[in-house]
């Protein structure tokens, strides 16, 4: 019980820090703390496999990706510069909407108790084939939910291809990959006959 509250505080504090940090690198660090705390929360909720996946994929891969992009975008020594703020004070309505929706959810959640089937949760964390263990998860993933799994693989492939296309190689001296066709230089469909005959 106490673990929940500690983790809740860490989650919320790190989320706020992420959103409000001045530099992106600070945001990445805040996000890291958030993900680790989230993994701990999953452990409390007996989702062991998922907790590990959270750390491996999210903290391990995605955040590194973010760090790389920050590095690439801030090439050279110039800091991130920003233009004029085109929508100042937009945070006010954003916070208002968020608070309203938050209030609605919280009030609903507190008024309508969620039915629990705690008795069906088999085993405690750590036992093989317990609820949320690797075996249990694997069985679910490869039998009941095989199709989503395969489709997810497809999605990942598409993402890789997409990334390569979008941010792929540049031509020599910084020109884009594809040839740009200038207006008016369309090739004729029928080539004119050679002159000398």
């Amino acid at each position, binding site marked *: 019980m106490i673990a929940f509250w500690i983790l809740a505080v860490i989650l919320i504090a790190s989320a706020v820090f992420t959103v409000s940090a001045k530099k992106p690198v600070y945001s990445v660090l805040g996000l890291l703390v958030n993900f680790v705390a989230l993994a701990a929360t999953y452990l409390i909720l007996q989702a062991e496999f998922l907790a590990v996946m959270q750390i491996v994929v999210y903290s391990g891969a995605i955040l590194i990706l973010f760090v790389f992009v920050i590095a690439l975008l801030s090439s050279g020594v110039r800091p991130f510069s920003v233009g004029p703020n085109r*929508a100042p004070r937009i945070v006010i309505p954003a916070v208002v909407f*968020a608070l309203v929706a938050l209030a609605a959810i919280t009030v609903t959640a507190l008024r309508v108790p969620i039915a629990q089937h705690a008795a069906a949760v088999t085993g405690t964390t750590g036992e093989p084939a317990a609820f949320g263990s690797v075996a249990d998860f694997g069985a679910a993933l490869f039998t009941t939910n095989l199709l989503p799994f395969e489709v997810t693989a497809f999605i990942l492939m598409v993402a890789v291809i997409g990334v390569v296309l979008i941010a792929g190689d540049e031509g020599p001296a910084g020109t884009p990959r594809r040839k740009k066709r200038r207006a008016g230089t369309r090739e004729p469909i029928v080539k004119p006959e050679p002159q000398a005959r």
Partner: protein
Amino acid sequence: MLLYLVWLLPLFGAVVLWAFGPQLKSWGGPIGSALIGVAFVATLVLWPDATAQGGLHVTLASWLPGWAFGLQLDRLSLIWSLIITGVGFLIHVYSIGYMDGDRAFARFFAYMNFFVFAMLTLVLSDNVIGLLVGWGLVGLASYFLIGFWFERPSAVSAARKAFVMNVVGDVGIMFAIFLIVAKIGSIGYADLFTRFGAAFTPHELFLVCLGLFIGCAAKSAQIPLHTWLPDAMEGPTPVSALIHAATMVTAGVYLIARFAPVWSASPDAQELVGVIGGLTALAGAILGCAQWDIKRILAYSTMSQIGYMIMGVGIGAYDAGVLHFFTHAFFKAQLFLGSGIVIHALANEQDVRRMGGLRKQLPFAFAAMLVGVLAICGVPGFSGFFSKDAVVYGALASGHPWLYAVGVITAGITAYYMFRLLFVTFFGQYRGEVDPSDLGLRHPELAGTAASSGHHAEEEEPHHHAPSWLMSIPVGILIVPSVLIGWLDYGPNAPWKQFFAGFFPRVPEAANVPLSEIVSTALVFVVVVIGFAVAYWRYGAPAALRESVARLRAETVRMPGVLVNAYYFDAAYEMLLVRPAYALGRLIGTVLDPHVLDAGVREAGWTAQWLGHLFRSFQTGLVRVYALSLALGVACFVVYYALAFGAGR
């Protein structure tokens, strides 16, 4: 089939002359006149058929049950058709001479032929719808002809005034016709006369008669819708002769005579008509004493004589009223045509104060007008004597002593102003070269130029024409009936009475008639002589002729305002009707149109534009704003679901 010819030849003439006017040039006159002449001959040929039992009947078309359109030539329409085509023919021939040299010569005859067609439609129809069509077309023809010289603003406004007043009458007659068709279910006269007794309550009958009489009052220039007739003298003199003396203004008389059975069934309506007829006769005669324009004098005399006719047919003395129409058509046309000769000879001078002594220079015109004046005054032996006495005695015999008195007094006043016209115009010395201010004319340019800016505008100095034979012969021909026609009603077995025997409902006889017919005739004669004597003493005596300039000046200056302004009828209409109408028009034009109607359209466009601007402001292009709108949507969904499903199970 000859009836078709009578009816349609004038229409054919109108269309041809109107379409080919510029090509026909001066052939338009003879063509138009010839067509009317043929129509007249055809009408004469149809006389036996018309006077046969039931008259001549032709069905044109049958539409709905009860709606059958046709033509009929019975005794009443025969009399009117003969006048329309006969006198019309003579006036057409006269016009060839009068309108000679006018720029729009053929157009004049087109319009005259159109008028004849319209009037024939009115009198030849056997149904109320045809009557209404003819009624309206006659008003239209009058508008065309009064405003014939349309470059003159006074002519245009006179034409407009005549038309608008006629429309007022049209409304009355239309309501009467609506009531008739609604209650009777059919449009034919025959059905009306057989069924009206059962179909109408007395109150409804009075309303029908009232509606019809409003139409009559407008068309026949009775009080209070009479103000258009003097102004209608802006038209050429042949127009005044044909339309505003002989035929169109008598359409009201025809209407009452045609609907005789209906009128006789409504004594209240008859009283009303009789009173207004008598009143108009008297008022017109009084105003005739105050006029200086030769055509206006004749116009008011027309108004007065038609008052006699209306009075006659109003109280039920139908054949007397119709006889007065018959005689009046001849002598009034003759008076107008004669005055036309004078006007033409003096190069469009119409003010009698600037005439005088024309007896020696225009002897033929003098003779013609003398005969006309004698006829209109009812001097024994001339035609007007018989018809006027018949009307006036009819009033007495049917128990209307006050109307009788009015009729007798008016006869005296008529004699006075007609002889005044004669003396001032034809006797004494010529005053055309006298300085206008000596005659009491404050605005000398008005005296001559109002009349002379007509069709001889290009001539600057007056010159005298001798009347051409085309103008003299019709006038000469008209002298004969002016004298003789009245004898048709002489004696108890007169041909006139036999002609209409049994045609009209009987006149109710009064209980005791104070005077016998002989005494009444003598009384009228005495009053006429008194009128003549006063006129002679004031204008015709040698002493008066010597001082004519001074006397005329005195009379001009001292003329009472009431008479000069025609009892202020025009001023009253101006105040009560014309100015509010203009004000309403101005209100609509300046307030309603730009600020309400246009504003509505403008605002619709502006709203569309404003909406566009509003929606455009949403497209900021900023990702964050779009994200905010997404968040707003999410918040709405969340709140909705929370409220809808979060109420607890």
